[in-house]
């Protein structure tokens, strides 16, 4: 019991001396990467995204995004299997089969129209999470943006977990990459206001993107695996304080 109390005491530094509650020992280096990413966004990605959204008709944009999402499914299936998530592997497989055949290679999305279960978006970072690997320090990666050490490893492995990379002959295997770059630009254009508000309107764009990324990523990690989603703040499994509670602290208690 005392050990437990001690651990909790250590894990929660006195809020009076710390405004930041994120584990970010490499903040200085991360901030340098952030300012690089931000200038890259301002100079290239943002204008390209806006230009793309403006130049390409909405229907085509949607088709390209769907195509890219469909190609991401085999990788998700592999990760569902690695996670022991048989249901997710099955629903993603059906989705891939339906959209590849009826959806003419993924350009259309009949699976959603048929009300099939939503795609799981499983990735290797999530697989590491289910294997009990710690999130690790926060990291901002060049080009790729906010991440954690665990997700950085996950992203690297994901380059290799998609079976299509091996199955497709050389020129076709690049279609997926091209489509995913295009759908990335499309997202940058479509969510322009949201991303702009984080990068250019917040008091500290580094702290804002870190906070938003970590909250959203932790939410997604727990999603689709359990009805009451897992604790995104990932306390030790079997923690007595977990379960019935919520991940949010009670502001009325402060």
């Amino acid at each position, binding site marked *: *019991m*005392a050990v*437990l*109390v*001690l651990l909790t005491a250590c894990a929660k530094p006195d*809020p*009076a001396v710390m*405004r*930041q509650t994120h584990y970010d020992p490499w903040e200085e280096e991360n901030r340098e990467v952030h300012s690089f990413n931000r200038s890259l966004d301002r100079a290239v990605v943002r204008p390209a995204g806006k230009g793309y959204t403006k130049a390409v008709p*909405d229907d085509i944009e*949607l088709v390209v995004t769907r195509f890219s999402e469909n190609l991401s499914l085999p990788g998700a299936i592999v990760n569902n299997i690695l996670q022991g998530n048989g249901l997710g592997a099955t629903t993603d497989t059906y989705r891939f089969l339906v959209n590849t055949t009826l959806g003419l290679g993924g350009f259309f999305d009949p699976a959603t129209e048929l009300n099939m279960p*939503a795609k799981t978006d499983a990735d290797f970072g999530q697989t590491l999470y289910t294997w009990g690997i710690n999130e690790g320090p926060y990291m901002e990666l060049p080009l790729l943006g906010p991440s954690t050490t665990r997700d950085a490893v996950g992203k690297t492995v994901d380059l290799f977990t998609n079976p299509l990379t091996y199955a497709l002959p050389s020129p076709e295997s690049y279609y997926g990459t091209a489509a995913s770059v295009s759908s990335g630009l499309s997202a940058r254009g479509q969510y322009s*206001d*949201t991303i702009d*508000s984080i990068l250019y309107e*917040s*008091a*500290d764009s580094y*702290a*804002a993107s*870190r*906070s*938003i990324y970590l*909250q*959203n*990523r*932790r*939410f*997604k990690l727990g999603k689709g695996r359990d009805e*009451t989603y897992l604790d*995104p703040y990932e306390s030790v499994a079997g923690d007595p304080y977990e379960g*019935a*509670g*919520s991940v*949010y602290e*009670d*502001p*009325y208690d*402060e």
Partner: protein
Amino acid sequence: MNEFSRRKFLGTGGAALAAATVTTPAMALTEAAARRLVDQVVADINRVISSGKSLGGMISDFERIFRSYADVNIIARSTLGADSRRASPAQLRAYTDAFRGYIARKYGKRFREFQGGEIVVRSVRRARSWQEVISTVKLPGKQPFEVKFLVSDKSGSDKFFDMIIEGISLRLTERDEIGAMLDQRGGDINALISDLKRAG
């Protein structure tokens, strides 16, 4: 660790354990009441979205919704974090007013993105001393996403004290933002208040 601190430690731990077992929260707020509140909020929001009002109109509508259904006092105090303890009551009041306007401007202008969309309340579940009401937002041509409202009656009436979009809590995100603003102003709460009146 010496004998004294160890004993003190065990004592505190024991007291904490006792407190934890004794205080099973008396649930005053029912699921039905929480759901009723969020149904009202959602109906109001859906009305604003479909009204096709101007930007200014949407911002003032959002401020009205925020004022009547949200516990702005606790949200504001919570975003100030530990610094709320050294703020005077007058400062806290001024901060809360400035914060309300700031939130209305910042999020009210984003309401336009919801146009053509719809929010549907899906389920309610109990968590600690509050209720979590889960809703789905459907926007044309986009994947539906989850918005969760945390509802409590600790203010004396049923109010929501957080709104969580795909896991991103408005309150915790603004706490980081306000913390950054305070850091940039050397912890000066008055400077924060006067700048907040224009921010958003």
